[in-house]
Every structure is written in C-alpha cells, then in structure tokens.
C-alpha cells in the first residue's frame, strides 16, 4: 500500500498580530501519499501558496503538525533539514527563478553543487536531465536567451536532477501560453507516472487541476469540497 509522505494535522498560519492579523490557514488537515499527483486549488488569497510553502518546509506553521515521511517537521533543524530539502524536494516556480547571466547547465547543476557532488558526476547528471527535456543543445546557452517554455523546462530539469521524491510546482504554467503550458503539464505528469515522483501542484487553473489524481480545494484557509469553490 502507499504510505503517506506528507501529512498535516490542523495546520494554521497567521500573519501579523492584533487588528492587522490575517489568518492565511485555519486548520488544514491533509494527507499526501507517495506517488500521488495532488492539485491544491483555490483563488488568490485562499492560502494555497502558504500551504505549499509549509509543506515544502520553506515556511513554518503557526500551529499544527506536519510530518514528512513520518518525521515531525518541527524537529528537523540545521543539517538534517537542509539535507531533506536538498534530496527530497524539487521546485518548479511560476517565476522560474533561474540565475541570470549563467548558463542553463549551471542552473541545472545548482542542486547537485549544493549536495556536494563532484564536478564530473554533476555535469553528467545535469546533461542527462536536460536530455530528458530535449534541451541538450541549450546547455551552454545563457538563461536570458531562452523562451518562457524553454525556461520552464530548464526549471523542471533542475527540479528533477537530484532525483527528488516530491516535486512542488507553484503555478507552473502561470507565465506560459496554452501550447507551451500543455507541453510543461505533460512533462510534469509524465514524471509522476513514469518515475513515481509525488507531484504537488498549486494552481487556480481548473484544467490543470483536473489532470491531477486528486484535488484539494482551499477557501479562506480551509479545505472545502470542490462544489463549494466552483459556486
């Protein structure tokens, strides 16, 4: 049976205090199993990005618990936390976050560099990842010379180069036209199906969400059922 890689109990997140207090999450309890593709759907301000950031250990919840692989995230500190981020997670962002004025290859190698992997091995694996995304010919190109679709494919190559178990995608197609979006979506779901990488997609795009094996709808920081959001 599939086991739960990410599970939360009653997560809350507040920003500010007093009259300026804003509750981004008000008690979220979810379970994400290994190999699932989950879409976190909601309008802007629904708390979906906040939830993803907490799941990816980029942010900490105000209260509630988060287990990653059965380990309480609150107990992860320093080296173990960094090792977990480095080996378990891959990120795909709407804004790409590629380092300008450096080559595609350098960008893809970054997670391996952080992981202290040797130069030759680093290059081999990065080229392999670029190959999978049909970007081998762009390895030496500067990131600024690429089109939006190419940039997002570089980002995906970077996300999967370290063989992560979970890929977090924050509005992965937000900046792309529909034809390119389709290519990127295909790529992400193929990784999920072929490699069994757990996929967590944050989106407000119903069409993209529909392709995920499961959808979690958020409204005002709460998990609601699908019909409510659509209404």
């Amino acid at each position: 049976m599939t086991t739960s890689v990410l599970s939360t109990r009653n997560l809350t997140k507040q920003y500010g205090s007093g009259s300026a207090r804003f509750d981004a999450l008000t008690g979220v309890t979810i379970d994400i199993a290994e190999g699932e593709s989950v879409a976190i759907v909601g309008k802007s301000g629904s708390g979906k990005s906040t939830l993803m950031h907490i799941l990816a250990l980029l942010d900490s919840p105000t209260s509630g618990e988060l287990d990653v692989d059965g380990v309480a995230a609150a107990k992860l500190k320093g080296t173990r936390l960094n090792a977990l981020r480095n080996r378990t997670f891959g990120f795909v962002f709407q804004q790409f976050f590629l380092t300008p004025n450096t080559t595609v290859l350098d960008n893809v190698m970054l997670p391996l560099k952080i992981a202290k992997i040797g130069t030759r091995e680093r290059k081999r694996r990065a080229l392999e990842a670029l190959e999978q995304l049909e970007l081998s010919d762009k390895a030496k190109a500067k990131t600024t010379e690429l089109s939006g679709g190419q940039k997002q494919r570089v980002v995906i190559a970077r996300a999967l180069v370290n063989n992560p178990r979970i890929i977090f995608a924050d509005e992965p197609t937000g900046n792309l036209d529909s034809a390119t979006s389709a290519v990127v979506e295909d790529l992400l779901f193929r990784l999920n199906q072929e490699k069994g990488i757990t996929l967590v997609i944050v989106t407000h795009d119903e069409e993209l969400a529909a392709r995920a094996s499961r959808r979690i709808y958020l409204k005002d920081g709460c998990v609601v059922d699908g019909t409510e959001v659509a209404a």
Partner: protein
Amino acid sequence: MRAIDILKTAIGNSFRSRLRTSLTVIAIFIGAFTLTITNGLGAGINNYIDSQVASIGAPGVMNVTKPVEATDATDGPKPYETSSPSEVSSGTGQPGATVLALTDDDLTAIGAVEGVTSVDPRVAVRPDYIEYGDAGKFQLNVSPLSAGVQIELAAGATLDQNGNELQIVLPTTYIDTLGFESNEAAVGKTVTIGITNALREQTTVDATVVGVQEPTLLGASPSINNALTTALYDAQNVGIPTDSANQYAAATARFDPASTPAQITQLKARLVDAGYAGTTVADQIGTFQSVIDGIILVLNAFAVIALLAAGFGIINTLLMSVQERTREIGLMKAMGMSGGRIFALFSTEAVFIGFLGSAIGAGVAMLVGGVISRVLANGLLKDLAGLQILTFTPSAIITVLLLVMGIAFIAAVLPASRAARQSPIDSLRYE
C-alpha cells in the same frame, strides 16, 4: 556546497556585475598601492640607514665626552681653578661647540664605570695634505677607524688594526682627484701625508692604500688604521709639552655589544653620574630613523584610511549584490544550502575582490617602485651609493595582501550575514 565550489561560485559571482566589481577593485587598488609604496619607502630608507650605522660604528662602542658644566644665567662666572682642564673643540655637534678635554685621570675614571670593558682616547689628528705621485697636494681630513666598524668597500680590503703597517682606506671620491686610474689601481699604492707639528715644522708620513670605500651618509673621509693614527699623532705632537699632549676631546668606551637598550641607558646614566656624557652611534643615527619611521607611519595611516573607505565600498557592493540576488539566495536555501555556506559564499566574494585589488595594487606598486627606484638611484640620489629608495620585501607584500583581505572580510560580515539570515520564503516572495 564544497569549499572549492564556494570559491569558484564566489569568483564567478564577483565577475557577474563587472562594472561594480571593477570600481570596488579600483578603490582597493589605490589603498593597496599606496600602502605598498609607503612600506617600500620605509624599508628602503631604513635598510640604507642600517647599513650606514654598521659602517659608522659597531654596537658596543660609545663616544664619551666631558660636557662643560653649564652656568646659570643669573650666576657670575665660576672661580678659576688651576686644576681644571682646558676646553677643546668637540669635533661633533654644533660648530664651535666645546667640551672639556679628557685627561688620563678621566680615562681611568671612565674605565672604572660599571659596564665599560675598555676605554681608549680618541686622538684627533689634523694632517695637512695627501699626495700621490705628482698630481698635487690635496686637503685631508681623516677619521681613525674604530674597532668593529664595517666599511663598504668598492675595492681592496679593510684596515688591519693590529699590524704595524701604516694603512689608509680612501673614499671613491678621492681616486680620480689623486690621480689613480681606477679603484683597483689605487689598492697597494703608497700615498704621502703631510702634517705640521707644534713647532710649525711640516713632516711627512707614507701610508699604503689597502682599500677603496663607498662614501657614507655622514660624508666621505679616508679611514686610517691604529698604526697610522699613532704615527700621525706622534708627528703632530712633536714640540708639545707632555702634560698638554695627553688631552683628548673624546674617548671611545667599549661595552658588551649584546647589551639591551635598557642596559645601554643605565650605562649612560652611570657615566652622567661620573660627570661624562656617552653617545652611541645608534643615538646619532637613530634620530634619523625615528623621524623616517614617523613619516612612514603617517603615510601608512593615509593608506589605511584609503583602505577603510574602500572597505565601505565593499560593504556597498555586497549589499547591492545580496539585494540583487535575494531570490537566488532564497532558491539556494530552498534547495538545502545552509546559512553558513551562504555566508561563506558572500564573504569569499568580498575576500576575492580584496585579493584582486590588493594583488594588482601591490604588483603595480612593485613595478612602478622598481622603475622610480632605478631612475632615482641613477639621478637625484646618485651620490648616496647603495640607497635603493624603494625596497619591497616579500613579508611586507604578504602583510599588505592579508591586511586588505582582512578588511574585505570584515566589510563582508554585515551583508553576508544578512544574506545568511534570510528566510527562504521571504527571499522567494521578494520582487
């Protein structure tokens, strides 16, 4: 991230915004260049003075005189004492300055002072002329060579102080004038020295030229050995009453050359208690050195101020760099890079910029200094043989490099720790 990757990435990053890096490097360059030049100047002049000190007087030798007791302006003249010795020209200090002549009793008293190992009278010989062949007679001032003094020889050998041969070492400036063909040709030749005795009769003494010396900072006069000094002194004193003959302007007191400056100060204090004044060569020349050290210190202070300004340049450069790369930092953190490594990355970048600026600065300073030094040595400072006005020692260069890199690192602490503290999510949200 491995250390080598941090280094490579930091170097790569510093070249990413070339203009900004170059401007900071120029600021550091100016400071490092100035510091290297001023240090070189200090080393060059002090080296020269050290070699001069060695040629003028050895450690462990002190010039002892008997100062005239000052009378208070309000007091009348002191009563005349038949026993009081006559005043003689001191030969050193201001022109016309006199000291009380030392008698044989004084020499015994000086020898008895604790710490003095031996004492010799400094006899003043006043020869009239020196002559070689038929090139004419020339005025002659000689200084007896004290024990342990080293002279910088251009040719020949140094004086034999114990032998009976009458020996003289001529400065290079005398060679042409006296009619020798070259420095080497002068060695071994015999010169004639004329001297007038108390009866106004002129007699001559023949001496052998054993060496040719480079002129020193304190002038260029020939040096003579003990045998020649005695011979000239005897020739000069013919006709002087014996009680008056044994009067000396100064005496040379020897003490343990390994004495510490504190011990030398104590020795001087004991001499003062006994009624004498002692000065070492280091005292005379040392004042030069302390003035030069003071000037170099001030120049170095300016250079360090320039470097401090450059340090703020580094802070500014890095702060902009951190700001510009906020999202990159966030991403690296999201990918599991620790705060410590981020700090290392940015501080390495600063240290690299510091290294670049100081290496170029020191390198250019050495090139420019070498050229200036050579031009001056053949031009303005031609008369000061052996003076290399800018001397660059490896240790001084390394000190400059380390100092600048240290300043760069300190400058990096604020921006780099700001980068290290950033939470990944805030950085990623940053627009």
